[in-house]
């Protein structure tokens, strides 16, 4: 514990905050308190600079042009792929497929791997904590293939019922798809155990890592999963970009899901042959500036002292949960032992939508509503929650501002 405290002291949140220009702005004339990081994180100056530099000095299409700029763009683009592969400890950059985001990564697996391997009567297991992005693509697949979607129940504390999971694995399970960290509650799922049990049962695994990558190191090889999906914009990078990590042998066995340029090897009207992964899954001109900017975002993450940064994040979240427990008329939704990045709650005083509006007027940005997790809201019997979610640049002062804001909200409602 002493070491952890020392680490917290060593971490200078103000230096980190200074790298994010938007954090110094105002909302409704009040200093911005940004606690909506699970929706999207803000972008450091280095990411903004790279985007501008790209269009000023590098802009060209990748992988095709035989000219100076095309080489520059392609090198930057592929260097970022290598960076992300290293960030996830993948076996190589060929295992990284660029997508539009976590949602598209999951849809890619459902449409390509899923349509090939899922058949009538097969079971797909997800959890009750999932974002709609990790529910609907599987529902669509099940509907098409006459397969069945099974759901790991959620306990009152917002954790997965692992005994029930074990029972579900007795069925004809082909795929298990769960989130690493719940977007709505911040629950950290025991993905190592989930993957291990799934493998024993002979099922393929996909982990939705959207809410994990900004908060914890991810080692896909150690994790042992088959697919890992993430979004750049929740990792200090630009919107509209994400990635799918997949085991190369699996990617290689998968058919393309979108046709077009880049994904082909050779095209004739009689027969088209397909490029190897990852390009097989990257039809069309990709988000080149976004990919290069994600590289800058990964540089930013790499520049932080990991231990002290994560001790700082833990301290701020623990502080927030402790303040919440003392706050009269506040009910935590989900109270998992392992929690990262987010805290969800409701106030007796009023509807989450009103709480959000009245916090917003005070410059405090939180997310209210169902967090694209309607089945989870139904599980807890609430129309929605207020979610405060954190990034490395948040401080205890942000938490204090939140609770001052909440006290003011109570005077209204």
């Amino acid at each position: 514990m002493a070491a952890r405290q020392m680490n917290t002291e060593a971490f200078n949140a103000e230096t980190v905050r200074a790298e994010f220009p938007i954090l110094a702005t105002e909302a409704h004339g009040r200093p911005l308190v940004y606690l909506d990081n699970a929706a999207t994180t803000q972008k450091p100056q280095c990411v903004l600079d790279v985007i501008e530099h790209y269009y000023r000095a590098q802009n060209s299409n990748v992988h095709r042009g035989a000219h100076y700029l095309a080489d520059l763009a392609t090198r930057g683009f592929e260097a970022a792929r290598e960076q992300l592969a290293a960030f996830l400890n993948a076996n190589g950059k060929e295992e990284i497929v660029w997508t539009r985001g976590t949602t598209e990564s999951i849809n890619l697996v459902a449409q390509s791997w899923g349509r090939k391997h899922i058949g009538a009567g097969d079971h797909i297991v997800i959890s009750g904590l999932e974002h709609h992005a990790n529910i609907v693509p599987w529902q669509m697949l099940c509907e098409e293939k006459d397969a069945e979607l099974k759901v790991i129940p959620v306990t009152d504390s917002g954790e997965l019922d692992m005994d029930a999971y074990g029972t579900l694995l007795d069925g004809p399970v082909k795929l298990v798809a769960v989130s690493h960290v719940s977007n709505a509650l911040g629950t950290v799922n025991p993905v190592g155990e989930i993957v291990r049990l799934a493998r024993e049962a002979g099922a393929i695994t996909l982990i939705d890592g959207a809410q994990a990558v900004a908060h914890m190191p991810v080692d896909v090889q150690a994790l042992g999963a088959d697919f890992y999906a993430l979004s750049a914009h929740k990792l200090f990078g630009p919107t509209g970009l994400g990635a799918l990590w997949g085991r190369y042998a699996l990617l290689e066995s998968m058919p393309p899901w979108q046709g077009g340029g880049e994904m082909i090897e050779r095209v004739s009207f009689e027969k088209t042959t397909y490029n190897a992964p990852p390009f097989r899954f990257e039809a069309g001109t990709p988000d080149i500036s976004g990919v290069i900017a994600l590289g800058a975002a990964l540089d930013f993450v790499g520049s932080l002292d990991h231990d002290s940064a994560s001790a700082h994040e833990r301290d701020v979240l623990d502080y927030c949960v402790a303040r919440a427990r003392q706050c009269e008329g506040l009910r935590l939704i989900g109270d998992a032992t392992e929690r990262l990045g987010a805290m969800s709650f409701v106030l007796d005083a009023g509807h989450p939508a009103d709480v959000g509006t009245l916090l917003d007027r005070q410059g405090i940005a939180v997310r209210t509503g169902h967090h694209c997790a309607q089945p989870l809201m139904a599980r807890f019997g609430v129309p929605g929650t207020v979610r405060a979610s954190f990034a490395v640049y948040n401080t205890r002062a942000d938490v204090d501002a939140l609770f001052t804001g909440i006290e003011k909200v109570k005077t209204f409602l």
Partner: protein
Amino acid sequence: MQAVPEWLKSNPMGVEIGTADVFRELASCQDWETRYQRLLTLAERLPCLPASTRTESNRLHGCQATVWVTHAFDPVAGRLYINCDTDARVVKGLLACVLSGYNAQTLEAVRAFDAKAFLATLQLDDHLVSERQNGLLALVGKVRMLAHRYAA
């Protein structure tokens, strides 16, 4: 066409409380705290809908608060009667503001009422940005659609 039910006719928005009254009440506020306090007071003037009308088909799908809307058209008077309900009080206040321009009005007046411009004069137009936000945009869309339907 059955008569306009009493519980719809009892909605004071657009009748006892017109847009000019709402404007007088809210536009003059010096700070957001006063404006929102008065908005919450206004919300209390909007009668609750009978439970029987809180049906799925009367529901406006917003991301946050659940909003129910019900209406009746009086063909003799040529007026459209509308009321809304929701569990969220700020949202209900916003709905009341909009209904001051729509409820018990002629179809011509309904079509002519610019809800967004009106909310802008109250400095509340930031609530009309996203469809998923609070159902307000969906209400405006629905009322305009009704006005066209009954005019046809």
